[in-house]
C-alpha cells in the first residue's frame, strides 16, 4: 500500500478532491515520516509541526464547505531556510541568524499559503546558500538518502534530500549558481530554476541578488509545473520581478516533442567528463530523438569562462548583501562590545562560517578601488556575452540538453579542504544564472554503484513551458524519477 507521504502533489490533490484523503492525514503522514527519517537524513532545520497541523485542519474544514483555496490546498511543502516566514525562525543555516524570527512572509510563502499549501518545515542548507554540498551548514550536514556517506549537493541539499526521502510532498529551493539543480541531480529529484524575474525574491535572504532565483524541487515534472504556477508572477515588492504573463504550466505538459529542436553543446561534454554521466545524458537525448525530436550539435565556447566570471559576481554581491549582519538591530551580537568596531568584528567573526568569510573577503577585494573596473565591470561584460551566446543558440534550437554536474554525488568531506574543486561543481549550472535562463534537472538514471545522475534542460528566457514539457516527455519514457532510495529508517 502506498503511504500518503509517498504521493506526488497531483496524486494527493486527486485524493483530497475525492475526499479519500484529508489534509490532516496527509500532513500527519509526512510529519511521521519526518520524525522517523530525520535522525538519519537531517534534511530539516526546523519542523513546523503545530502550525502545519492547524493549517491542515483549516484546509479540511474549508474543503468540507466546498471552499478549498486551490486544487492543491492541503499539500505539505518544505521551505529552504533562507525564505522568510513570519513567526518561524529563518536561520540560513548560520549562527548569525540562529535567533532571527522574521516579522513578515516572503512573497513565495504568501503565495503558497494563499494556495493552501502547508509549510511543514524549513530545510537545511549551506550557510547563506554558499556551497555545493550542504556541509557548510552551521547546524550539521545533510545526508544523501542514496548513500548516507555522500553529500546531497547544495546549497538546497536539505530540500532535495527531504523530497528524495519522502519527507515532504513539495519543496522550494533557491538557485544562485546551481543550488537547486545540482542537489536535485545528486538526490534524484526534479528541480527547476526559473527565468530570473519569474518568481519574486522578496523575503528570500539574498546571497547574490542578480543571480538568486527561487524554484520548485519536486518528485516529478508535473509537480514542478504546478508549484511554479503557484509561485510565479510580478511582485510590487521586488523591482527585478518581471511583468510577463504567467502561462498555464501544467497545461503545457502535452508530452508531444515531435519536431522539438534539441541543442547539444559540445563544451558541456568535455573530455574529462564522468563517463556514466556522459552515457546517461546521451541516452536521454537519444530517447527523445526516437520520439521525433531533432538533435542539433551546438558550440557555446564562452562556457570556459563561466566559473571565473560567476565567482567574481556572486562574491561581490554577497560581500555587499552580507554587510548588514553586524548585530545592531537583529540576529547575533558578538561577545565583545567594548566599542563599535569590537562589536562588528566579534559579531562577524563568531557569526559566519569559513566559506561565508572566504566569499565576503573575495567579494570585498573584487569591489575595492582599483580592482572594481578590472574584475566586476569586466565580469558583467562577459555576462552580456554569455547572454548573447545563448540567444544565438536559441535561434537554432528550442531547448538545450546537457549534464547537470560533472560528477555523481561525492563523499562528505571529500572537497571541504579544496574550495576551488568545490566551486567547479557549478560548471554546468552557473552559466544559466549568468544569462538569467531557466533550467530543469530531472533524474537521469544511476551509476553502476547506484549513485544518482541528473539530466539538465536549458530553455530560453521565459521558456519554462518548453523545458517542462521536454522533461515531462522524458519522464513519460523513463521511471528514474519513481526510484526511491533504499533507505533504512527506524520504524
Amino acid at each position, binding site marked *: 500500500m502506498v503511504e500518503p507521504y509517498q504521493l506526488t502533489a497531483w496524486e494527493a490533490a486527486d485524493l483530497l478532491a475525492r475526499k479519500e484523503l484529508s489534509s490532516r492525514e496527509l500532513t500527519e503522514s509526512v510529519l511521521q515520516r519526518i520524525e522517523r527519517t530525520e535522525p538519519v537524513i537531517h534534511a530539516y532545520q526546523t519542523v513546523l509541526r503545530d502550525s502545519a497541523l492547524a493549517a491542515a485542519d483549516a484546509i479540511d474544514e474549508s474543503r468540507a464547505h466546498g471552499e478549498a483555496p486551490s486544487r492543491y490546498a492541503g499539500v505539505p511543502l518544505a521551505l529552504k531556510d533562507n525564505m522568510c516566514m513570519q513567526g518561524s525562525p529563518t536561520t540560513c543555516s548560520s549562527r548569525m*541568524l540562529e535567533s532571527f524570527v522574521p516579522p513578515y512572509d516572503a512573497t513565495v510563502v504568501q503565495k503558497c499559503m494563499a494556495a493552501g499549501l502547508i509549510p511543514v518545515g524549513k530545510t537545511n542548507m549551506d550557510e547563506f546558500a554558499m556551497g555545493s554540498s550542504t556541509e557548510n551548514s552551521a547546524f550539521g550536514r545533510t545526508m544523501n538518502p542514496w548513500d548516507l556517506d555522500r553529500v546531497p549537493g547544495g546549497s538546497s541539499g536539505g530540500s532535495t534530500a527531504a523530497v528524495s526521502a519522502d519527507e515532504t510532498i513539495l519543496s522550494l529551493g533557491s538557485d544562485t549558481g546551481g543550488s537547486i539543480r545540482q542537489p536535485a541531480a545528486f538526490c534524484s529529484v526534479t528541480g527547476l530554476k526559473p527565468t530570473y524575474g519569474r518568481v519574486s525574491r522578496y523575503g528570500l535572504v539574498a546571497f547574490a541578488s542578480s543571480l538568486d532565483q527561487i524554484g520548485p524541487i519536486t518528485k516529478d515534472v508535473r509537480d514542478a509545473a504546478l508549484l511554479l504556477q503557484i509561485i510565479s508572477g510580478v511582485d510590487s515588492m521586488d523591482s527585478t520581478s518581471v511583468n510577463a504573463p504567467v502561462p498555464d504550466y501544467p497545461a503545457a505538459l502535452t508530452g508531444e516533442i515531435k519536431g522539438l529542436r534539441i541543442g547539444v553543446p559540445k563544451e558541456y561534454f568535455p573530455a574529462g567528463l564522468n563517463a556514466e554521466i556522459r552515457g546517461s545524458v546521451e541516452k536521454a537525448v537519444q530517447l527523445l530523438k526516437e520520439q521525433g525530436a531533432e538533435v542539433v550539435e551546438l558550440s557555446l565556447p564562452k562556457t570556459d569562462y563561466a566559473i571565473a566570471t560567476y565567482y567574481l559576481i556572486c562574491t561581490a554581491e554577497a560581500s555587499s548583501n552580507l554587510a548588514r549582519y553586524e548585530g*545592531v538591530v537583529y540576529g547575533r551580537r558578538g561577545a565583545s562590545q567594548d566599542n563599535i568596531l569590537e562589536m562588528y568584528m566579534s559579531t562577524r567573526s563568531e557569526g559566519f562560517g569559513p566559506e561565508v568569510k572566504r566569499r565576503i573577503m573575495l567579494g570585498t577585494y573584487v569591489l575595492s578601488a582599483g580592482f572594481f573596473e578590472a574584475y566586476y565591470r569586466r565580469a558583467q561584460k562577459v555576462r552580456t556575452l554569455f547572454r548573447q551566446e545563448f540567444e544565438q543558440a536559441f535561434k537554432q534550437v528550442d531547448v538545450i540538453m546537457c549534464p547537470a554536474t560533472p560528477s555523481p554525488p561525492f563523499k562528505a568531506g571529500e572537497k571541504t579542504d579544496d574550495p576551488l574543486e568545490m566551486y567547479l561543481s557549478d560548471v554546468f549550472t552557473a552559466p544559466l544564472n549568468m544569462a538569467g535562463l531557466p533550467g530543469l534537472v530531472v533524474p537521469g538514471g544511476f551509476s553502476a554503484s547506484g549513485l544518482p545522475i541528473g539530466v539538465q534542460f536549458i530553455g530560453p528566457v521565459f521558456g519554462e513551458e518548453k523545458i517542462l514539457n521536454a522533461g515531462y516527455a522524458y519522464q513519460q519514457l523513463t521511471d528514474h524519477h519513481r526510484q526511491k532510495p533504499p533507505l533504512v529508517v527506524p520504524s
Partner: protein
Amino acid sequence: MNYEPVIGFETHVELASRSKVFSSTRAEFGGQPNEYVNPVCLGLPGTLPVLNRVSMEMSLKAALAMQCEIPEVTLFDRKHYYYPDLPKNYQISQEYQPLARHGRLNIVMPDGTEKTIGIHNIHLEEDAGKLIHEKRGGKWISLVDLNRAGTSLLEIVSEPDLRSREEAEIFMQTMRGLLRYLGVSDCKMQEGSLRFELNISMRPAGTTEYGTKVEVKNVGSIKAVLRALDYEMERQTEILEEGGRVIQETRLWDDDKGETRPMRVKEGAKDYRYFPEPDLPPVRLERDYIDRLRAELPELRDAKRKRYVEQYGLPEYDAGVLAADKHVADYFDECCQAHNAPKAFSNWIMTYLLAELKDEDSDINDLPVKPAHLAELVKLIDDKTINQNLAKKVFKEMMESGKTPGAIVKEQGLEVVSDAGAIEKFVDEVIAENPGPAEEYAGGKDKALNFLLGQVMRKSRGQADPGAVQEILNRKLRS
C-alpha cells in the same frame, strides 16, 4: 598678497515625499524613536528596495528647475560603509549615472547683477538614521533611532563657482527659495531637512588654479555656514601667508566654539566600494514624461519678480524681496487677488510681516495674520474707515489675537470719525479751551494749526479725519 575664496556647496535636501525613498514607511520628522520603520527600511534579511516614484519626480523637478541635463536612464549604486545608523551598512545612492548633470542656478546680487553658478550633478539617495548617546546607570550607551533611515535625500553638488561670502549667502538663500518654490522640501534647517556642506579653498586673487579644498560638515543654519566660512577663510589664508600648505580633509564645525576641526577618519582610508545596485533595475526617464514635468514647473522666482515689476509696477527691490520666498510670494499674490493694492501690500509685508519672522526656518504662513486679513485691513484704509495710524494699532492687535481687522475695529470702536457734527463739537470745545492759539490762527499764524489739530485729535482718540478737522477749523476761524 590678497587671497580669494573658491566656494562650492553640496546641498542635502530631505524631500517632502510622504513615504520613504525605497519603502512604504511614513517619512516624517519626530515621532517616538523607531516609530516609522518597516522591514524594508530596517534592512531585514530578504527585504528589497522599491523606488518611490514621488521622490524621483520631486528630484527631477528640482533638476529641471536648475536646467540640468536629464539622462535617458538613471542608475542606483550601493555605497558601503559601516555605521550603526545605516541598517544595511550600505547606502543606496547614485554614483555612476545620477539623475541630473550640468545644470545652473542664477543668483542675483543686491546691486542687481546676476551670476550663474554651475550645478555639477544631482542625485537621489537614502538618508541614515541617527544615534543618541546617553549615560544610563553611570555608563555611556548608544541608542539607534531609524525613523529617518531611508527617507529621500536629494544631493545637489554645485561647481566651485562662488567667490565671496556674500555670493555664498545669496546662493544658499536662492537654493532654499527655489526648493520651496518647487514644494519638494520644507527646507527646515533646524530639523535637518536642508543641510549645506561647504567646500572651500583659497587662492591668490587673480590666479586661476584651484587651491587645496576643505570640506566642512555639521553646519546647521545659513548663519552658521557663514561663520564657518569666515573661520575657514581666515584659517586657510593664515596658513598660506605663512607659506604653509592646506591639507585636503573634512572638518566638522563646532557651533559653540565657533571653529572647525578635522574629522578623525583619514580621507585616504575611505573606499566605498561602489557598485550598481542589483535590486533596482535601471530607471528609464521617457522624454515625454520629462517634457511634461518641465511644462508643469510652477512660476519660479525670476518670473515672479519680473511680473511684479511689469504687472504691478513695483520697484525692482520690492519685487525681489517678495519673490525670494515662495510662501511670501504666494501670500502677496493672495492679497492682490482679494484687493487691488499691490504697493500697499508690498509695504505692509516688507515692513511689518517679514520683521516678525525670527529666523530662516520661520514661515510667513505661520503668522496669525492671514492674507485675507491683511487685504481687509488695506481695504479699510482705502475706504477711509481707518487711517494709517489706526491701521498700525489694528495690525498690532491682529498679530496678538489673530482676529480680523473688521472685528477689532468694531470691538474697540476705532472707526475714523468723519461725521462733521461730531468733529465740529470737538473743534468748538478746543477753541473754547484754547482761546490764545485760536486767536493766533485766526490772525494768520499757521504755526498754531498743528497745536489745535493735535488737541482735536486727542479728544477724538485719534479717530477724527485730520483733513476734515482742518477744514472745520478754517471755516470757524478764518472765514
